[in-house]
C-alpha cells in the first residue's frame, strides 16, 4: 500500500450518470497522484438486471479501466457496508459518489447511502457529484419479489383483514360505535405492516380496510355507498391513520432489523479480527480464518495457500466429520478464481472459490462447499468480510516480516560499519611499527648493532603475531555477524582441547605461567574443536592482558551435571561487579591499568560468548579469592557407548 498517497474509490454501477462519477474520480486521482480503484458491489439479484443495465455496467467498467482504474468486485447484499469494508481494508482515502446514489431519504427503509457509508467508515472523505441527468434519480429496475414470499405476504394480509372483520361483526351487533370498529381495522393494518416484508401490503391493507368497513358497517350496509355526510372524512382519516401508523411500524422494524444485523456483523468481524490478530504466521492465520468460516457458515472449507505464484496443496477444514474432496478435479477452478481475480464455481458446481487478495498481492484461494445450496446474500457478506480480514492479517504479517528482515539487515550493516571503523583504527598501529621497523632495517641495517637489530626483529615478530591473532578473531567475528557461524561439532576429549589451547598460548613469549588441572575422569565434549580451542585461547590471552604479563593463570576442567565446565582463573585485579555483564559486549575494553592499550580490540570475550552460546553452553565471570577473575564456561557433555 502506498502510504501517504491518496487512494480514490469510485463505485461502479449500471447508472447512466456513473460515467461522470468515474471521470471525476479519475481526475481526482490524477490531481492527487493517487491510486484509483473502481469498485463494483455485486448483489445476489445482479443476475436479474435488465440487458440494458448489464450493457451500461460493462460500458462503465471499460471506461474506468481506460482511465487507469483497477477494477475490483466484491460480493454482498449490503452495498454501503461492502464499500466501507473495502475502503477500510484497502486504505481508501476518498470515495466519489453520485447524487442519485447519495439520494434523498426514502419514506421506507434505510437512510441514504452517504449516511450509511459515513456510519461504517467515518474516516473516509466522501465526495458527492451532482447528477445533472434529465431523467431524475435513476433506480435500477427492482427485481420482482419472489412468488413464494408474495403469496405468503398476501395470505397474511388477507388473514389479518378477515380476522379484523370477524372481530368487528359481533362488536357491531352488540352496538359498539364505528370508532371501535375503525380502531380494530387500524390495528389490523399495523399488524399487517409488521408481519409482511413489503410496504405495498400495508398500503393495500389500508385501502381494503376502508372499503370493507364501508361495505359492511356503514349505512347502507353491504354497499359502497355511505349516507352520512361525515363518512368521506372518516374514510380519509381512517386510511391516513392506518397507512401512517403502519409506515412508522414498518420503518421501526427495518431499523431494528438493520441494527441487529449491524451489531451481529460488527461482533463477528470484531471476533474474527481479534482471533486473526492473535494468529502468528501464515498457517495459523489461514487456520483461524477457516475455522471462523466453518463456524459461521457450517460448510466444508478448503484453503489453497499461494507460494511463489503457485497454489500449494489445499488445507481441508471439514464442517462435520469427514469431507470428500477431489483435489485434482477442483484445483483448476481454484486456479481460475485466482487468475481471473473473481469468485467462481468449480466445473461441477461443488465448490465456490474466492481469491485471497489485497491490492495486487495474492495469498491464496478459499473454497466453500456449495453442493447443498448456494450462498445467500448474508452468507456472501460474511464470506467477503472474513476473507478481507484474513487478507489484511496476512498482509500485516507479511509487512511485519519484511520490516523485521529490514531491521535485522540494518542492524548487521551497522555492526559491520562499527567493526570496520574499529579495525581499521586498530590495525594501523601494528602495521605502522612493522613497516617502520622493516624500512629502518632496509635503510640502516649496518648502523645497528646486533643487539638493536634483534630487538627490532623481535618487535616485528610480536606485532605480526598480534595481527595474526586479530585476523583469526575477526574471521570468526564476521562469520558470527553474517550468521555463517556453522558449527562442526564432534565428540572431543576435553583434555585434548584444553591442552591444545594451552600449548598454543605457551608459544608466546611471556613471563607468566599457565597451569593446567585436568579432571580425573575422561570427559568427552560435543563441540566444534577449533572454536572451543579459540575460546580457551582468548580467555587465557585475556587473563594475561588484564592481570599483567607476570600473572599466574590456571585452567581447570571438570564435569557439572550434564555439561562439562572449564575455568580460567587469574590472580589479577578481577572484574568490577558493574562490568561483569559488559565484558562480553563487543568492543568493550575495561579500565584495567595495562599500558599498551592498542592490544585490545574488545572482541575476544564477545567471541567467546558467541561461540559458547552457539554450542548451547553458558559463560560467566566471577571473583577469585583473594583477588582476580574466574571465567567459567560450560559445553554439552558427550555420552559415549564404546564400540568394541
Amino acid at each position, binding site marked *: 500500500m502506498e502510504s501517504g498517497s491518496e487512494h480514490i474509490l469510485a463505485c461502479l454501477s449500471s447508472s447512466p450518470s456513473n460515467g461522470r462519477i468515474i471521470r471525476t474520480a479519475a481526475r481526482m486521482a490524477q490531481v492527487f497522484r493517487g491510486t484509483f480503484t473502481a469498485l463494483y458491489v455485486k448483489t445476489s439479484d445482479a443476475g436479474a438486471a435488465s440487458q440494458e443495465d448489464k450493457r451500461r455496467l460493462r460500458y462503465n467498467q471499460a471506461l474506468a479501466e481506460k482511465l487507469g482504474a483497477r477494477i475490483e468486485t466484491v460480493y454482498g447484499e449490503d452495498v454501503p457496508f461492502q464499500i466501507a469494508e473495502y475502503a477500510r481494508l484497502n486504505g481508501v482515502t476518498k470515495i466519489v459518489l453520485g447524487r442519485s446514489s447519495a439520494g434523498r431519504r426514502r419514506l421506507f427503509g434505510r437512510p441514504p447511502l452517504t449516511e450509511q457509508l459515513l456510519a461504517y467508515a467515518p474516516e473516509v472523505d466522501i465526495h458527492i457529484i451532482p447528477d445533472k441527468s434529465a431523467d431524475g434519480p435513476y433506480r435500477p429496475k427492482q427485481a420482482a419479489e419472489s412468488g413464494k414470499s408474495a403469496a405468503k405476504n398476501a395470505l397474511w394480509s388477507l388473514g389479518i383483514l378477515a380476522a379484523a372483520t370477524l372481530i368487528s361483526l359481533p362488536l357491531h351487533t352488540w352496538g359498539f360505535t364505528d370508532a371501535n370498529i375503525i380502531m380494530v381495522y387500524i390495528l389490523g393494518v399495523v399488524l399487517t405492516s409488521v408481519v409482511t416484508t413489503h410496504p405495498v401490503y400495508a398500503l393495500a391493507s389500508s385501502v381494503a380496510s376502508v372499503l370493507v368497513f364501508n361495505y359492511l358497517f356503514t349505512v347502507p350496509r353491504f354497499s359502497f355507498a355511505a349516507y352520512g355526510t361525515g363518512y368521506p372524512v372518516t374514510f380519509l382519516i381512517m386510511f391516513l391513520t392506518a397507512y401512517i401508523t403502519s409506515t412508522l411500524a414498518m420503518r421501526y422494524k427495518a431499523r431494528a432489523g438493520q441494527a441487529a444485523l449491524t451489531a451481529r456483523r460488527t461482533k463477528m468481524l470484531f471476533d474474527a479480527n481479534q482471533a486473526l490478530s492473535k494468529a502468528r504466521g501464515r498457517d495459523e492465520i489461514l487456520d483461524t480464518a477457516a475455522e471462523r468460516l466453518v463456524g459461521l457458515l457450517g460448510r466444508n472449507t478448503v484453503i489453497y495457500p499461494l507460494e511463489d505464484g503457485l497454489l500449494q496443496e489445499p488445507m481441508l477444514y471439514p464442517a462435520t466429520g469427514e469431507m470428500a474432496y477431489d483435489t485434482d478435479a477442483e484445483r483448476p477452478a481454484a486456479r481460475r478464481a485466482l487468475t481471473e481475480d473473481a469468485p467462481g464455481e468449480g466445473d461441477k458446481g461443488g465448490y465456490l472459490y474466492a481469491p485471497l487478495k489485497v491490492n495486487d498481492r495474492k495469498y491464496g484461494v478459499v473454497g466453500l462447499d456449495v453442493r447443498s445450496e448456494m450462498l445467500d446474500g448474508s452468507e456472501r457478506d460474511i464470506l467477503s468480510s472474513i476473507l478481507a480480514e484474513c487478507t489484511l492479517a496476512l498482509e500485516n504479517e507479511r509487512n511485519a516480516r519484511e520490516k523485521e528482515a529490514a531491521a535485522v539487515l540494518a542492524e548487521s550493516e551497522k555492526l559491520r560499519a562499527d567493526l570496520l571503523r574499529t579495525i581499521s583504527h586498530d590495525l594501523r598501529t601494528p602495521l605502522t611499527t612493522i613497516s617502520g621497523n622493516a624500512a629502518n632495517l632496509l635503510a640502516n641495517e649496518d648502523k645497528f648493532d646486533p643487539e638493536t637489530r634483534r630487538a627490532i626483529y623481535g618487535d616485528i615478530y610480536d606485532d*605480526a603475531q598480534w595481527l*595474526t591473532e586479530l585476523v*583469526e578473531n575477526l*574471521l570468526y567475528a564476521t562469520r558470527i555477524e553474517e550468521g555463517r557461524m556453522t558449527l*562442526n561439532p*564432534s*565428540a*572431543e*576429549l576435553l*583434555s*585434548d*582441547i584444553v*591442552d*591444545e589451547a594451552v600449548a598454543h598460548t605457551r608459544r608466546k613469549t611471556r613471563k607468566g605461567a599457565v597451569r*593446567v588441572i*585436568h579432571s580425573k575422569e*575422561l570427559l*568427552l565434549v560435543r563441540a*566444534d*574443536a*577449533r572454536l572451543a*580451542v579459540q575460546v580457551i585461547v582468548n580467555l587465557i590471552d585475556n587473563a594475561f592482558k588484564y592481570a599483567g604479563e607476570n600473572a599466574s593463570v590456571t585452567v581447570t576442567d571438570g564435569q557439572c551435571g550434564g555439561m562439562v565446565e572449564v575455568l580460567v582463573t587469574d590472580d589479577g585485579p578481577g572484574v568490577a561487579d558493574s562490568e561483569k555483564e559488559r565484558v562480553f559486549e563487543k568492543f568493550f575494553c575495561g579500565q584495567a591499568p595495562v599500558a599498551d592499550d592498542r592490544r585490545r580490540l574488545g572482541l575476544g570475550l564477545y567471541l567467546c560468548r558467541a561461540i559458547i552460546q552457539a554450542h548451547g553452553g553458558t559463560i560467566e565471570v566471577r571473583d577469585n579469592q583473594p583477588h582476580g577473575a574466574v571465567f567459567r564456561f560450560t559445553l554439552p557433555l*558427550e555420552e*559415549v*557407548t*564404546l*564400540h*568394541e
Partner: protein
Amino acid sequence: MNKFLILVVEDDPPVRNLIATTLKAHDYRYLTADTGEGAVMEAASHAPDVILLDLGLPDMDGVEVIHRVRDWSNVPIIVISARSEDADKIAALDAGADDYLTKPFSVDELLARLRVTQRRLALMGGDESASVYENGALRIDFAAGCAWLGGEELHLTAIEYKLLCLLARNTGKVLTHKFITQGVWGSSWDNDVASLRVYMATLRKKLEAAPGSPQYIQTHIGIGYRMMKVE
C-alpha cells in the same frame, strides 16, 4: 650438504620466497612450481624427496594434484592451507597427503615438519615388512601380537592394540579420524569418533609417561592423530 630435494608448490611469491629462503638457510635443495600442472611436471621429472603443496593453486585444486602424484609416487606430501579450512586439510590427508602446515606458519614449524618427514623416510627405508617395530622405548612384535615399553609388556585391549599398530605402521603421518576408524572398525560414523577418543585416551595412559605432553601419539585437534618418531 643436505641431500634432500624439496619441491615447493606455491603461487604466492612472498610465501614462496620465504620458504625458499628458509630451505636455503638450512641447506636443503629445492625446486619451485607455481601451478598444479607445473608441480606434477616437476615431480615427475626430478623425483623430489618431499613436496610442500599449497592447497589454493590458480589452475587446479591441491587435492587433485595429490591424486595425480599418488598415481605413481609415494613421495611424502606436506600440504599448506589457511587455518580455517579444516575440511580441506582432512580431504588432502584422506587423498594421500602425509602432513599439513597451517598458514600463517612459523619457520620453526616448517623445519620441524621436514625433520619428521625425513625420519619417517629413514624408517621406511629398510624394514617396510619387518615383523618387529621399534620406536624409542616402544617395541611392537607384529608376529607375536604384543607390545613392550622399555622391556615391560603393555597390557592392551584388542582395540588399543589395533590402534597402536595402525599408528605405528604410519609413523610420522597424520591419520585422519576417518582413516583410523575405518582401519579399526571398518566403518566411520560419529559414534566411532567418540569411541576412538576414549580408546586413544586409555592407550595413551598406558603408553605415555606424561599424557599431558605426549611423546608418542600427537593429537591434531579436529583432524586426527599421529605417531611420532622418538629418538
